[in-house]
């Protein structure tokens, strides 16, 4: 099997970027990734882009648009979609396209422009990731789906509202030093609990925000890395993807994501490491409860102990969870998030540590992709 690594990363500032269009965001991230890789751009043989929904912008066919605007024609351009996991699904298929031997250098990007649609539009667009015929039909929102999970987790394991709030508190603190983050201010548990209730038990500050943004990475085969004399590639050691029922009521349990458990198992197995080896984990805290599920399902603690884990600042002896701020504080431009996580891990692993993990969830857990990256020290022999 070919060895493949990330050789360049780039992202826009995340936030409400009124002056930038979807195409502007995608191009900015792409240029930065190309510059970071110190390549020309013409070496790129295919473009994969994650983007959740044309409902946000009325613009589909985004991959072709981005390839065009970035001057990358006539390379194949592919949009991948799996709701909020669109970015990492694009990444995984970019990775497979290199593994296939058809390509050597590929860009994987993600972009979402969520503030062009006004009124309740974004809310409706987000719900398109759930089961519209049965969950949307009764008036559920995306926050509502995660509130149902949170309530059940509280019931089964005694998880508290304060523990949920701590997820947001920790992530806001972690984002203070993240120049790309939407929110760079500390908040308290009191702030979270006194913010408006969106969907009980979830408060406004339990929810990741509406965000515009894009991120891009350049992937390359070992042969290309040697040819280009890349100095500090960050290796892709394992990638797992799994699916679970779209609607919550079709699952065996509300308090675990089988998609995460199975995707993680595949990724750990391919990387030949275990949860105990991970030092940096970027997990999908679209709502506070989801960081708790992730910590449990990825194996950083026992099932039901996630609330206690976040009480210790989301770190233990080995792993630091969402050390760059998570979706809550960095922002969550849905299609971009999976790629943003990999950008953050790459920047970290270039400096320190050996193993990083990204977990990107689509919908209310129906899709999950787990990716394990390794620094140059991670390659044995």
């Amino acid at each position: 099997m070919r060895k493949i690594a990330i050789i360049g990363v780039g992202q826009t500032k995340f936030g409400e970027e009124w002056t930038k269009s979807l195409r502007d965001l995608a191009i900015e991230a792409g240029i930065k990734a190309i510059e970071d890789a110190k390549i020309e751009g013409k070496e790129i043989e295919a473009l994969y882009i994650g983007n959740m929904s044309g409902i946000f912008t009325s613009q589909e066919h985004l991959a072709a648009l981005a390839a065009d605007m970035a001057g990358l024609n006539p390379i194949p351009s592919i949009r991948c979609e799996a709701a909020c996991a669109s970015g990492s699904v694009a990444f995984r298929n970019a990775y497979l396209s290199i593994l296939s031997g058809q390509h050597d250098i590929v860009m994987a990007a993600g972009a979402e422009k969520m503030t062009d649609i006004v009124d309740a539009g974004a809310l409706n667009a987000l719900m398109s990731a759930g089961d519209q015929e049965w969950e949307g039909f009764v008036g559920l929102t995306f926050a509502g789906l995660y509130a149902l999970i949170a309530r059940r987790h509280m019931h089964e394991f005694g998880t508290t509202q304060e523990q949920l709030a701590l997820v947001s508190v920790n992530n806001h603190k972690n984002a203070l030093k993240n120049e790309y983050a939407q929110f760079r201010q500390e908040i308290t548990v009191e702030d979270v609990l006194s913010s408006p209730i969106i969907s009980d038990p979830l408060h406004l500050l339990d929810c990741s925000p509406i965000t515009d943004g894009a991120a891009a990475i350049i992937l390359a085969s070992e042969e290309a890395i040697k040819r280009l004399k890349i100095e500090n590639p960050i290796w892709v050691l394992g990638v797992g993807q799994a699916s679970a029922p779209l609607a919550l009521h079709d699952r065996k349990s509300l308090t675990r994501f089988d998609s995460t458990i199975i995707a993680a198992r595949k990724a750990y197995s391919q990387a030949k490491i275990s949860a105990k080896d991970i030092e940096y984990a970027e997990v999908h805290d679209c709502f506070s409860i989801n960081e708790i599920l992730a910590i449990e399902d990825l194996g950083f603690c026992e099932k039901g102990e996630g609330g206690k884990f976040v009480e210790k600042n989301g770190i233990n002896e080995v792993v630091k969870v969402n050390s760059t701020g998570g979706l809550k504080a960095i922002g969550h431009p849905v299609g971009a998030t999976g790629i943003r996580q990999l950008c953050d891990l790459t920047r970290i692993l270039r400096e320190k540590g050996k193993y990083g993990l990204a977990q990107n969830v689509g919908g209310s857990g129906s899709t999950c992709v787990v990716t394990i990256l390794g620094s140059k020290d991670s390659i044995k022999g």
Partner: protein
Amino acid sequence: MPLSPISSIPVARRIIKNRYRLIGSLCENCKSMFMPPRIICPNCRRKGRMKEYEFSGEGEIYSFTILNTAPEGFEYQKPYVVGIIKLREGVLFTSQIIGKVESIRIGKRVRAVFRKMSVSEDGFINYGLKFEVIDEGSS
């Protein structure tokens, strides 16, 4: 603007029977029951034999949330409760729950009732089932 397709007339008409009468499916091969209905039994796949099955409409609350932020068509109901009901037959099903908010708890018994579900801006009304809390007196 046209109606959002999710509340459009073609969609509503298609699944009206299942939404009005809680008709799901039963796999005659493995005896599993499904609500909403499924065409394929995920346990048996090609060996499955699915037929229609009408659920009793009784159950208990498995989880619930109170929504203060509503999508299009539901604004006028705020706040409203959506829950996952564990039907008597053992199957989970998503529905609105009606009754005094204080009385809504995990484990509470509920039963299905026919109600107005949502009203679109141009007046199209979706109907369906909601679950109401059963007042058990001493409980």
